[in-house]
């Protein structure tokens, strides 16, 4: 990377950290640390919610996902707008009016301390691990840039995020998210423009889109119903709805964001804006990945996008097999480039027969290309048992570093790091606030001063940062990060959502019934994950519906006294 890129990267990040720390230097009470003192307008709530969800994983892994499998991943977000509407109607007014600091506080008022502790515990486990993946993503970038082991860069990035979050808390996250989203959106927009400029001069935008289409990269919507298919319209709409409902309705890293709105109206508007903008934003990022694929029809791609693993193979005992696999890869690339040339010529000539033949040739060459890449991945696994051999997380990074102009490389990397800082710091704040509000303050020291709780929150931030960095050391075994983080969430979200749905709507159900139902449902989801091939998005549906059904059954079977109703009159 050139000096100018380093300057752009360092300048952008320094500004964000210094600005966030300076703006929040006088935070003294717990409400201000956790919920920014309920002071934010809707557009800051919207930015905050979007920036928290858009981690570095989004910008590194998502274009790589489109490069490999096309735009189908966008279906994952189809349930999100519906969830924003439902949450605006239900959760937002309830949380605001009860003036809770965390979502789990509500569960004690509605059920009992045990149910609150269970939901908070499930959240802490899954979010503590997921934050490790959030921190791992930018560490991959630094590892490639500096040629350092990823374990070292993970510790460095973790330290930076811990210091930034522990000193500023929620307010620091919120006040810098405007700057961070600006960096992120301008970085991705400029990246798309620069990518399109890399196409040969005689290839138009519509021809680039056509090449992506015949290569199977524009398959954005698949209406077939298949439980084992990860991304189709139905899994995205139904499973994605339950996942988004759970993530935004019960995950403190998001609840804390929109409760920082200064009123119900401001929080609602922030969520609804997210419902409008999220799907197009993800589509844009995936489309960038599809266009990277098209550029690699004209610029030779590497056989493996992780440069550290490529170098290890080229210099190690498997170099002869690697050279052979690289040759196979090169031949497939040449064959596909020739087929793409014939396809474009046939389109320009208006010859349907030649176009059809070239389309078949592109697909046949694509199959050989995939098989050559799989052979290289197998060699990576053989040479480094700690790696799963896949390189999806490295596709966009390698492309940016090797093909985009000086200055823009620094800006895009700043976007990746900004995204990492905003999401990781929001997640650490949520972990710390849940630990303090739902654990320490509730069960250990209920009557200390606010200054004491803020001090403990800072210590909890450091503790969770260390846990996340420790888990991040295993992230290289988990494949595509954007999938790994959502699979991890889906293992727990269904159960947590079920508890909240019972709390909101099943007024007759008490704490004992919902607690038992939640334990059985969580065990069932973990069994489903371990023993079947059901797509992870369905875990959210199964976990949630099981909790609701079992809680109602147990309530009837036990004849327990009704739960406490807390919802204020509308």
């Amino acid at each position, binding site marked *: 990377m050139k000096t100018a890129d380093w300057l752009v990267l360092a300048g952008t990040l320094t500004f964000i950290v210094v600005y966030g720390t300076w703006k929040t230097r006088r935070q003294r009470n717990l409400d201000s640390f956790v919920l920014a003192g309920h002071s934010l307008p809707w557009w800051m709530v919207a930015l905050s919610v979007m920036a928290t969800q858009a981690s570095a994983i989004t910008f590194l892994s998502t274009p790589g996902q489109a490069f490999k499998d096309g735009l189908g991943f966008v279906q994952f977000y*189809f349930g999100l707008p519906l969830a924003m509407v439902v949450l605006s*109607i239900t959760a937002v007014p309830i949380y605001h*009016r009860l003036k809770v600091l965390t979502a789990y506080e509500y569960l004690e008022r509605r059920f009992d301390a045990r149910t609150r502790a269970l939901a908070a515990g499930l959240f802490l486990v899954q979010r503590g691990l997921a934050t490790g993946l959030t921190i791992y993503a930018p560490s991959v970038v630094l590892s490639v840039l500096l040629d350092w082991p990823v374990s070292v860069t993970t510790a460095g990035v973790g330290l930076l995020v811990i210091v930034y979050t522990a000193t500023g808390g929620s307010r620091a996250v919120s006040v810098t998210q405007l700057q961070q989203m600006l960096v992120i959106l301008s970085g991705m927009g400029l990246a798309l423009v620069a990518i399109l400029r890399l196409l040969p001069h005689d290839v138009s935008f519509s021809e680039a889109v056509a090449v992506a289409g015949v290569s199977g990269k524009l398959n954005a919507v698949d209406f077939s119903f298949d439980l084992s298919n990860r991304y189709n319209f139905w899994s995205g709409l139904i499973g994605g709805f339950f996942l988004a409902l759970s993530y935004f309705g019960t995950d403190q890293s998001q609840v804390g964001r929109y409760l920082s709105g200064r009123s119900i*109206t401001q929080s609602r508007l922030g969520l609804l804006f997210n419902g*409008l903008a999220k799907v197009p934003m993800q*589509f844009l990022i995936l489309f960038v990945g599809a266009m990277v694929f098209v550029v690699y029809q004209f610029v030779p791609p590497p056989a493996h996008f992780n440069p550290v693993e490529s170098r290890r193979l080229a210099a190690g005992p498997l170099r002869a097999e690697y050279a052979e696999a690289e040759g196979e890869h090169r031949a497939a690339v040449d064959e596909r480039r020739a087929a793409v040339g014939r396809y474009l010529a046939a389109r320009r000539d208006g010859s349907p027969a030649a176009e059809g033949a070239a389309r078949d040739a592109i697909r046949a060459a694509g199959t050989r290309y995939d098989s050559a890449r799989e052979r290289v991945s197998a060699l990576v696994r053989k040479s480094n048992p700690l790696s799963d051999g896949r390189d999806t997380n490295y596709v966009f990074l390698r492309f940016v570093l090797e093909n985009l102009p000086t200055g823009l490389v620094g800006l895009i990397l700043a976007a990746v790091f900004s995204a990492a800082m905003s999401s990781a710091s929001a997640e650490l704040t949520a972990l710390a606030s849940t630990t303090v509000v739902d654990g320490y303050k509730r069960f250990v020291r209920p009557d200390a001063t606010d200054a004491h709780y803020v001090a403990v929150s800072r210590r909890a931030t450091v503790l969770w940062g260390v846990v996340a960095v420790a888990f991040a050391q295993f992230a290289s075994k988990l494949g595509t990060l954007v999938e790994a983080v959502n699979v991890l969430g889906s293992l727990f979200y269904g159960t947590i959502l079920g508890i909240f749905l019972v709390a909101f709507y099943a007024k007759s159900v008490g704490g004992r019934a919902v607690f038992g139902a939640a334990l059985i449902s969580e065990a069932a989801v973990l069994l489903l994950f371990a023993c079947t091939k059901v797509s992870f998005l369905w875990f959210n549906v199964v976990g949630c519906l099981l909790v609701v059904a079992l809680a109602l059954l147990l309530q009837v079977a036990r004849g327990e006294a009704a739960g406490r109703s807390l919802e204020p009159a509308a």
Partner: protein
Amino acid sequence: MTASPPPRPGEEGDRPPVGGSWAVLYAGVIANLVLLVVLFSVLARTFR
């Protein structure tokens, strides 16, 4: 005739600043999703 209750503290009334009512905003968000799904389907069918 009874007057509608005043907004609760911290709430700016039950009407959104745009759209006239919350139902209109909710319908707008869902209509936006439907439109996007249709556009993505057309894109996939046109270029395949």
